[in-house]
C-alpha cells in the first residue's frame, strides 16, 4: 500500500511552500518481511531583494520500520527435499514440530538443508531507520551586476538505524549454527551515517552584441562521507559473548571546476571544462585533473538552412573529454592497516581462562590512483516536420586507463590474496542511435513511438597488474566449490570473457561428465585447455517505448532487448551434480535441468553452463483513464481523478534456461525471480 499527499501554496507574496507526506507499507515476498515508512517533506523557496536572492530550502525526513525475513530460506527452499512435509506428524516433537534431518546416530544432521519454513520462523530481525536529507541553496545575483550569479549549496544526508536480530533458541537453524549450538543468539546493531556537502560557484553569463553569448563558471565542492557502526552479539542460552565490533570511516572529496561556454548566433558553440578532483581514498595519488572540450554546430540556424522546410533540427556535435573514477573498495585501502581482533573464536594464547586478542596486518594497495576515461564522441541530431520525427546518432571511442578492479594478487607479494588494484587499460567503441516519432497528433488522439539501439565493443588493451606474458587475470568468482573463477581479463578480449573448458557431447547430444576437448592436443586435459570464448556484456542493446492517448484514455508500453550477452548459469552448475542428491544422509534437491546433463560430479568449469543470454523484455504496460472534472472544489478548482493499472515485468523472450538472462557481469546465481508487479492506482488533484 502506498499513499502520498502534497500541498503547495504561497505565504505572503514571496514565500512559496510545498509540504508533502506519504505512507507506504510493503510486504516482501518472503513471509515476515515488511517495510512501513512514513515520509514528511518540506520545501520553501523564498526570494529577497527584488528577486536577487533566491533561497531554496528542502528537507525530507523519513522513518521506517523494517522487518527482515531470513534470506537463507530462498536457497533452502531450492535445495530442500520437496517430498517432505513442512511439519512432522509426531505429537510433541522437537524443534517446534518442523520436519528435520537427523543422522544415523540420531543427532540433528547439521550438514543437511534446513527446513525453509523453520528457517523463516527461527529468526526475528527488525530495525528502526531514520533519515534526513536536507539542502539549502542560495542563489544571489549581484546588485548592479546581474550577469554574475553566486551560488552556494549546503547539503546533508543523515541516516541512523538501530536494529536487533534474534536467532531463537532450540530451533533447527540454531543447532546448525556451530557457534550457537542450539542456544540461539541475539545481536544489537546500529549504524550512523552523515554525509555533508558544500558547493560554491560563480557564474557569469552575458550576450554581447546580440550574437556572442558567453557563460563562464568556476567553483569548488567539498564532500564528506562519515559512518560508524556497532554490533554486539551474545548467545541466548548462556550469555556467552559472541563478539563486539565497531567500524568507522570517513572519506573526503574536494573538487575545483571551471567551465567556459561561448556561442555565436546560436550556430557555433564551444564548451571547455576543467576539473581537479581530490580524494582521500588514494593517499599517495589524491588528485586527478580532467579536461574536456566540446564543439557544436547548429546547422539548422545557418541562413542557408532556414528555408529547408522538412528539416527542423540539424546539429553536429564533437567532443573530447576525460573523467575520473575513484569509487572502489573501502576508504583506507592505501594504508597498511592493522586489525585488532575482537571476536571470540579468533583469539590466541588461550591458557586457562586467559587469552590474547590478536593484531593482524591486512593487505593494502599503497599506489591506488584514479581510473581515467578519455571519450571521443561525434554526434548528429536531426529533426523533421517540426520535430515530429527526431533522430540522433552518436559514435564514440572511450579509452579507460588504470582500470580499478578486485583481482587476485601474486602469492607472497602482499598480506592478502585479493586486492583492489589499477589493472590496465581498455577501449570501448560504439554507435548509439535514437529515433522518436509522433505518429499522430490531433485533438483527441496522440501517439508517440521511440526506439533506440546501441552497439558497443569492449577490448582490453593493456594489463599492468600482471606480467606482460601472463595469461591474464582471473575474475568472475562463482558460488559452488571454492575459489572457482569462470572469466579472464586478457589483452585483445572484452573485460568479462568466459574462460572455460569445451564440453564434449555424446551422439545423442548430451554432455559427457568430466570430458573436455583437448584443445592444445597434448594428450591430457590441463588448465591450458581452457579457452577464451564468449563475453558477458551485450554487443547490441535496444529499447522502445510507445504511448497512446485518446480522449481521456492513456496507454503506454515499453521494453528493451539485448543481443550477444552470454550468461554462465551458476544455479544449474551448482545444483545439478547428482552425487549430492543423496549425500551425508540427506536429500538435496536438484534443479529440474539435472536429468538433462546427468553430471555425477559438479562441472563448474564446463562451457555447457555458458548460454546465449540474448533477450527481449516487455517491461511496463499502463492503461489509465482520467475524470477531468468530477466536481468543483471551489470556483476554477476542479477535482480530477486519474485511475490507472500498470503491469511491470510483463514477459521475457529468451533461449536462456535460467530464471533471468539480464545479469550484470554474466554470472547468474539467481534463485529468486524478479516479481511481476500489478499496480492499481488512483491520483486525485484538486
Amino acid at each position: 500500500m502506498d499513499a502520498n499527499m502534497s500541498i503547495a501554496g504561497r505565504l505572503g507574496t514571496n514565500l512559496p511552500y510545498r509540504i508533502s507526506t506519504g505512507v507506504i507499507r510493503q510486504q516482501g515476498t518472503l513471509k515476515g518481511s515488511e517495510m512501513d515508512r512514513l515520509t514528511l517533506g518540506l520545501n520553501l523557496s523564498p526570494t529577497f531583494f527584488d528577486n536577487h536572492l533566491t533561497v531554496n530550502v528542502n528537507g525530507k525526513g523519513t522513518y521506517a520500520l523494517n522487518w527482515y525475513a531470513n534470506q537463507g530460506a530462498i536457497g533452502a527452499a531450492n535445495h530442500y527435499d520437496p517430498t517432505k512435509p513442512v511439519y512432522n506428524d509426531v505429537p510433541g516433537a522437537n524443534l517446534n514440530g518442523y520436519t528435520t534431518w537427523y543422522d544415523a546416530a540420531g543427532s540433528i544432521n547439521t550438514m543437511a538443508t534446513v527446513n525453509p519454513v523453520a528457517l523463516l520462523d527461527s529468526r526475528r530481525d527488525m530495525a528502526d531507520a531514520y533519515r534526513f536529507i536536507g539542502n539549502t541553496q542560495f542563489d544571489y545575483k549581484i546588485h548592479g551586476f546581474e550577469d554574475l550569479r553566486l551560488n552556494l549549496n549546503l547539503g546533508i544526508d543523515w541516516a541512523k538505524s538501530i536494529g536487533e536480530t534474534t536467532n531463537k533458541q532450540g530451533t533447527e537453524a540454531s543447532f546448525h549454527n556451530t557457534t550457537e549450538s542450539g542456544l540461539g543468539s541475539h545481536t544489537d546493531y546500529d549504524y550512523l551515517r552523515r554525509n555533508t556537502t558544500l558547493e560554491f560557484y560563480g557564474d557569469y553569463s552575458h550576450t554581447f552584441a546580440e550574437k556572442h553569448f558567453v557563460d563562464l563558471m568556476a567553483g569548488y565542492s567539498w564532500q564528506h562521507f562519515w559512518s560508524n557502526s556497532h554490533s554486539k552479539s551474545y548467545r541466548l542460552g548462556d550469555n556467552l559473548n559472541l563478539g563486539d565490533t565497531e567500524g568507522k570511516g570517513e572519506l573526503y572529496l574536494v573538487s575545483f571546476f571551471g567551465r567556459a561556454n561561448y556561442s555565436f548566433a546560436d550556430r557555433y558553440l564551444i564548451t571547455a571544462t576543467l576539473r581537479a578532483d581530490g580524494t582521500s581514498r588514494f593517499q599517495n595519488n589524491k588528485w586527478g585533473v580532467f579536461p574536456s572540450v566540446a564543439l557544436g554546430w547548429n546547422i539548422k540556424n545557418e541562413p542557408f538552412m532556414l528555408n529547408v522546410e522538412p528539416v527542423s533540427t540539424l546539429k553536429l556535435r564533437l567532443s573530447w573529454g576525460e573523467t575520473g573514477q575513484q569509487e572502489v573498495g573501502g576508504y583506507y585501502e592505501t594504508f597498511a592497516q592493522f586489525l585488532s581482533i575482537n571476536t571470540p573464536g579468533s583469539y590466541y594464547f588461550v591458557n586457562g581462562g586467559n587469552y590474547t586478542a590478536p593484531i593482524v596486518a591486512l593487505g593494502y594497495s599503497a599506489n591506488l590512483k584514479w581510473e581515467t576515461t578519455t571519450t571521443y564522441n561525434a554526434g548528429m541530431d536531426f529533426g523533421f516536420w517540426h520535430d515530429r520525427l527526431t533522430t540522433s546518432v552518436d559514435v564514440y571511442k572511450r579509452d579507460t586507463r588504470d582500470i580499478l578492479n578486485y583481482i587476485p594478487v601474486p602469492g607472497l607479494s602482499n598480506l592478502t590474496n585479493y586486492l583492489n588494484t589499477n589493472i590496465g587499460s581498455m577501449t570501448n567503441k560504439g554507435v548509439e542511435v535514437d529515433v522518436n516519432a509522433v505518429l499522430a497528433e490531433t485533438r483527441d488522439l496522440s501517439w508517440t513511438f521511440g526506439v533506440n539501439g546501441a552497439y558497443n565493443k569492449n577490448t582490453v588493451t593493456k594489463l599492468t597488474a600482471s606480467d606482460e606474458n601472463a595469461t591474464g587475470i582471473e575474475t568472475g568468482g562463482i558460488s559452488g566449490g571454492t575459489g572457482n573463477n569462470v572469466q579472464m581479463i586478457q589483452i585483445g578480449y572484452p573485460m568479462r570473457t568466459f574462460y572455460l573448458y569445451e564440453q564434449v557431447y555424446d551422439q545423442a547430444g548430451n554432455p559427457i561428465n568430466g570430458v573436455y576437448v583437448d584443445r592444445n592436443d597434448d594428450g591430457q586435459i590441463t588448465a591450458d585447455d581452457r579457452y577464451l570464448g564468449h563475453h558477458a556484456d551485450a554487443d547490441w542493446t535496444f529499447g522502445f517505448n510507445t504511448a497512446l492517448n485518446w480522449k481521456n484514455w492513456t496507454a503506454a508500453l515499453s521494453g528493451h532487448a539485448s543481443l550477444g550477452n552470454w550468461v554462465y548459469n551458476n544455479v544449474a552448475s551448482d545444483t545439478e551434480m547428482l552425487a549430492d542428491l543423496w549425500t551425508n544422509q540427506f536429500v538435496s534437491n536438484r534443479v529440474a535441468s539435472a536429468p538433462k546433463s546427468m553430471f555425477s560430479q559438479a562441472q563448474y568449469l564446463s562451457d555447457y553452463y555458458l548460454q546465449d543470454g540474448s533477450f527481449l523484455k516487455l517491461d511496463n504496460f499502463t492503461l489509465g483513464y482520467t475524470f477531468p472534472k468530477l466536481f468543483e472544489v471551489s470556483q476554477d478548482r476542479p477535482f480530477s481523478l486519474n485511475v490507472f493499472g500498470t503491469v511491470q515485468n510483463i514477459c521475457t523472450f529468451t533461449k536462456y534456461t535460467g530464471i533471468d538472462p539480464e545479469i550484470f557481469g554474466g554470472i547468474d546465481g539467481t534463485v529468486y525471480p524478479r516479481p511481476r508487479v500489478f499496480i492499481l492506482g488512483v491520483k486525485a488533484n484538486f
Partner: protein
Amino acid sequence: MKKIQYILGVLALSAAVSSCVGDLNVTPIDPNANTVDKVLTDKASLDRYISGVYLGFATSGYYGPNGGASISGLDGGASQYIRGLYHLQELTTDESVCGWNDQTIKNFHYMNWTTDDTFIYAFYSRILMQVASANEFIREVKKVDFDAALQKRYIDEARAMRAIAYYHAIDCFGNVPFATDEDIVGVNPPQISRTDLFAWLEGELKGIIENGALPERSAVEAGHIGMGAVKFLLAKLYLNAKVYTGTDRFADCAAVLKDLMDDGYSLHTTPNGSTFSAYQDLFCADNDRCTDEIIFAVQQDGLYTQSYGATNYIIFASTGGQMDAFSMGISSGWGGLRTTPEFYHKFSASDARNLFYTATQQEDIEDIGEFSHGVAFMKFRNVNSVDGDVPNKAWNEEDAKWAGPSFVNTDFPMMRYADVLLMAAECQVRGAAVPGAIDGFNAVRARAGLAAIANPSLQDILDERGRELYQECWRRSDLIRFGQFTSGYNWQWKGETKDGRDVDSYRELFPIPDSDRLANSNLAQNPGY
C-alpha cells in the same frame, strides 16, 4: 560597507577552500583497524601482534570460525592451514581417505590432482600468507623499541614460524615464490629453487639457534615456539635433504637430534587420568598438559580459538556413521575420513595406538564415498584426559542428554618428542649414529605395548612412524623418503583403482597452482605438470 563585506566573504571562502584541501590528508579513524603507529604502542601490543602471526596456523580468519577468511575466494574451512596440510600429507597416502563430494577432494587419494585444484591452491596460499605475515611482523617490530629482549625473542619466533611455512613449501611445492622481511609489499616475488630454499632454510634455522633468543623447553610459554621446535625443524630438513637437494645429510641430522635429545623432552608415559592411555593423552582435549613430549602445538579452544580446520576438522571429519559423537567430545560428525585396510593391518590388536572404530565399519573400501567402508579413526578426541569429561558440553533438554560442543579444545601437536626418537633411530639405521637411538625407538614401542626390536630395518622404522604419527601430517614425506609414495607400495584407491596402482613419480611434488602462475610470470611449473 558592501565592499568590506565582499572582501571578508572572499577571505572566508579562501580559508574554507584551503582547509578543505587539507581534509584530504586523512588517517584511519576506525578504532579496530589502524596504522602501525597507533596499534603497536607498547609491550602488550607486541604480545597481541605475535599472537596474530600464530593465529595464521590456527584459524581461517579474523572474525570467528565463519567470518572474514583471511584468504578470499576460498571457503574458510578448506583454507585453514592444518586442514590444508592434512589434505596434502594424509589424503594422498595409505593413512586416509575422504568420502565427501567436495569438488576435487578425492583427487588427493586418487593421485590425479590437476594444476587448478582449489584445495592445493588454498594450502599454497595459506603457506605464503603465513610467510608474508611473519615478514611484516619482523619488518615492523624491528622499527619499534619497547622491550629489546622481548622484541628479539618475538622476531625469532616469527622467523621460526616463517621457517615452518617455508618447510611445508619446500616439502610440498619445492620451487616456490620467495620473499623475506628485506623485501617490500606489492612486488611480485621471484621463484626460488628447491635447492636454494634448502640452503636458505638451513642458514635461517642455524641463525635462530645461534641467536639464542628463544627459550629452552622449561621456559616456553603456552602456545609459543621455543628452541626445541627450531632444532626439530632443522632435523626434519636434514632428514629429507636427499629428497629436497639430492644429497643426504643424515650425519647433520643426527647431530641436531643429539643436541635436541639433551634438551629435557621425554616421552609422555604416565597417563594423566584413568580413562585414557598415556599415548591417548597426547590427542585429548587437555593435551596442552603434555609439555613433556609435545614440542610445538597449534592451539584450538572451544570458546576462544575456533576453526573448521586443524584438530576440529580431524575430529569432526573422522566421526560419522554409527559412531557416538559425544564419546569423541563433539556435537555430531561430518563423516568423511577413514583409513585403508593396508594401513590398518599394520597394527596388532594389542598396540595401544590401535585407536579405530570398527563396529559398524567394513575394512574393505568398495566405495570411497561410503563412510562405513574403511575403519574410522578415534585417535584425536575432544575429551579431557584428566577426568574423561567433555569440555563445553551442554545439557540438551529436549533429548535429555549431554551434547558435545561444535569446537574442540584439542591442540594440534605439530612436533612431538616421539618423532625425535624415531628420526634418531632412522639416522642410526641409515648409518649416522645417535647414542641411545635404538633404545629410544623401543621406548616408543614399549609405550604402545610392543616388544623391542634389537635391529630394526628401514621398513620397521617406516611402519613404526606410521603407527605412531598417523593423522599428524607426516605420512607423505615419510613415504617419499622411503621410496614408497608413487610406486613401491600401493593401497586402495591410489591411482583411482580399487586395489591401487603406481602413479608417475612427478607427483612427489605438487604443482604450482595455475592461479598464481597467471598472476606472477616469475613462476615456472614443476616438472611433469
